[in-house]
């Protein structure tokens, strides 16, 4: 309505720097997961983009297609930068995951929840701390919240109460070698944080 919308932006150098920093952080997270599961984690090249809320929907759709998923989210905040980590698990992963974790007993909803929380605390924690260390920001993490079990990606997006119109999104797809274990970790920084975090990036690029 005649009001200028301030759009955050990202240069190619900044995107490259985010990618490299994520690369290092997700490597640290993968190392911890690999040691926990005694398996090799395949590391992709992370995707870094400024996206709108509707595009987030598409990013999630893209990652998990039509399969049922379970998801956890966890907020983080520090030095004027805030965001949330969203870990989306393909439900087909739980059988192999239970086996690797030597989980005894029936694989019911409760057991799956336990596995989901174990893996998410390793992946989210290590990734956030890894990024924080490189940017010299100490992030405090909130409590993990289960967004849903055995649901469709649509439901996840609906349940999220997103206040922003645009977000810096970092997408990481983790896969375990030779097994059917797939998950996506999304790091979403709030719109207000983007300028601040870009400053830290520029400092590194200088």
């Amino acid at each position, binding site marked *: 309505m005649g009001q200028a919308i301030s759009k955050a932006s990202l240069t190619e150098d900044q995107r490259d720097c985010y990618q490299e920093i994520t690369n290092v952080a997700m490597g640290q997270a993968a190392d911890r997961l690999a040691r926990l599961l005694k398996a090799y984690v395949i590391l992709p090249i992370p995707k870094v983009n400024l996206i709108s809320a509707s595009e987030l929907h598409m990013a999630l759709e893209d990652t998990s297609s039509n399969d049922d998923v379970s998801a956890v989210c966890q907020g983080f905040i520090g030095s004027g930068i805030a965001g949330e980590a969203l870990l989306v698990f393909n439900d087909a992963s739980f059988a192999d995951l239970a086996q690797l974790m030597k989980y005894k007993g029936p694989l019911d909803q409760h057991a799956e929840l336990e596995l989901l929380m174990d893996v998410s605390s390793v992946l989210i924690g290590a990734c956030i701390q890894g990024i924080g260390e*490189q940017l010299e920001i100490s992030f405090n993490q909130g409590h993990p919240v289960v967004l849903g079990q055995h649901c469709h990606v649509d439901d996840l997006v609906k349940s999220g109460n997103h206040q922003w119109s645009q977000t810096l999104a970092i997408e990481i797809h983790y896969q375990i070698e030779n097994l059917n274990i797939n998950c996506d970790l999304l790091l979403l920084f709030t719109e207000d944080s983007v300028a601040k975090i870009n400053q830290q990036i520029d400092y590194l690029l200088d």
Partner: protein
Amino acid sequence: MALPVLICDDSSFARKQMKRALPAGWDVDVTFAGNGLEGLDAIRAGKGEVVFLDLTMPELDGYGVLEQIRKEDLPAMVIVVSGDIQPDAQDRVQKLGAMAFIKKPIDQAKATEVLTQFGILSEAE
């Protein structure tokens, strides 16, 4: 004569970080490559007697580069510099003939330590 050193990484930020981490006063001639194929070309052209090699790269990854170096018996001392620090990754690259493995993010102290350990730096000093 300056030692030909190749820095092979798909991230321009990582290449810059690597170049900054080279020991001060080390007499080198640095070449950059943005993926494994470019890296191999540079090594074949004699521009990589010492190679700092990333693992996760498009076109051809670091594992592929190591395999090809071995296949063609290219004269390159490869130091893998990677964010993939899983024990398996380190094992695999050493089996493929990498001389050393350095965790990212790299700094000058780590680079100097490895170069000295393998006697690459002592000649220059």
